[in-house]
């Protein structure tokens, strides 16, 4: 059990090292001649107009909210799925009821028009 997490921990440390090493090699052997013109933002040759870091539309937040509801509830469902073989039919029905509440939430968002891309 602990060895499993040791493996994950070591992987967490080692995994970024491989791509980081691959990014360090060009620092040593690649040419470096930056110029203001070369470092311009690439927008198909046209000069950039205005600020890039703008406020973006609220639509994305709505999708993120609907996602959040689902994701949190699904995490609660995973223990139910793991313990499924030992559960009596009553507990299974309770899980189904829980999913039904999720479905009701989805239909509420649907009817409210939160899922329409405008």
């Amino acid at each position, binding site marked *: 059990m602990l060895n499993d997490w040791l493996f994950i921990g070591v*992987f967490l440390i080692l995994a970024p090292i491989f791509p980081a090493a691959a990014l360090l090699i060009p620092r040593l052997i690649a040419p*470096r001649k930056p110029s203001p013109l070369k470092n*311009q933002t690439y927008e198909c040759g046209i000069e950039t107009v205005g600020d890039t870091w703008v406020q973006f539309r609220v639509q994305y937040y709505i999708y993120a909210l609907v996602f959040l509801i689902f994701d949190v509830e699904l995490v609660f469902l995973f223990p139910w799925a793991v313990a499924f073989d030992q559960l009596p039919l009553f507990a299974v029905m309770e899980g*189904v009821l829980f999913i039904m509440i999720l479905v009701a939430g*989805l239909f509420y968002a649907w009817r409210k028009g939160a899922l329409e*891309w405008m």
Partner: protein
Amino acid sequence: MGDPVTFIAQWLENLLLGWGLSPQWVTILMTIIGVAAIAIFVLLVDILLVWVERKVVARFQDRLGPNRLGPFGLIQPIADVIKLLIKEDITPIGADRIVYNLPPIIALATVLMLWAVIPLAPTIVGTDLDVGVLYVVALGAFGTLGIIMAGWASNNKYALIGAFRTVAQMVSYEVPMVISLMVPVLLAGTMGINSIVFAQSPVWYVVVAPVAALILFISAIAELGRAPFDLAEAESEIVAGFHIEYTGMKFGMFYAGELLHALTISGLVASLFLGGWRGPGAEAYPILGVVYFFMKAFFLYWAIMWIKYSLPRIRIDHMLNFNWKFLTPLALIVLIVTAILDKLFAGFPEWLYVVGMLLANLVIIWLTVQILRNRAKVERKRVAEPGPIAAPQNPSVSSTSS
């Protein structure tokens, strides 16, 4: 014999113990060696994937593909890597330096870390984590974070648009993906991926839960950001999306990460639904399991490529509608039906259980197709009806494609 990996590991462990190291240090050293072995093996496969990608896309487009360097152009990817290594590294003006340099590392590292839980053979597995499926979901979210960071830090509007689209897409398709991941967890009663492969003993789960397998496959393609869901890097609209400002090896990292992610997801779907390393003789000779695993994984990888080069890109509202109004409800229904039937069929003999599950899934598919057909009929009728000639004030006519 038949399991050289365990044999070498045993030999190495005895060797290290023989040198007088304490068992704790031997465990840590063996873990580091194991991680390095998996990572290097996967990265070598990744280099091969570049060749596979270029060769297959060439055949789909009626070309030959790389055929100059080495037999069948097999050395081509190594030449590609050398070219990328000696390319100049350009940081655009106004880029957020730290956030700009991290995403290429995240893109590849998160995909590499997925291989910690994917079983290549009954004994050749990084670690059979008891929350393996959740671990996969969590790392998928991390990969998304890398893309968003790349788009935000580049100080480029196209990159930012790509990142926005990625948010909407990844966040949406995560829902049916997680729901359909729950079906094999429910059937096997465990979240460990190797345990799920062990649990598929009489039949693969693709027979018991074909709809869940299909939903997982589709939403996995969307999570990959591959065509027809490649809105994040739509070449013809926003040039290259989130990685537009990345040059040389940084771009190479994104490219390698994307290819490897596709193979990793193929391996995951193969493990969860196609029996992973299962095949004749795999239990006795684990090395055969590696062959079976990669056969299945590459079959799915090829299917992903087939879809990628056959279908046009879909529009963002269609993509979101497809997810929220079709895949998510369908996945929830499949989960409910599987849960109830699994309990009802619990006392039945094995073959009856399998046939019952398969029939239930076929009924779901049939009903879904009927509902879709009816909806399409209504939609066609509404579009075909001659509306009032100048009727912009009537929104129901002007916005027929919802």
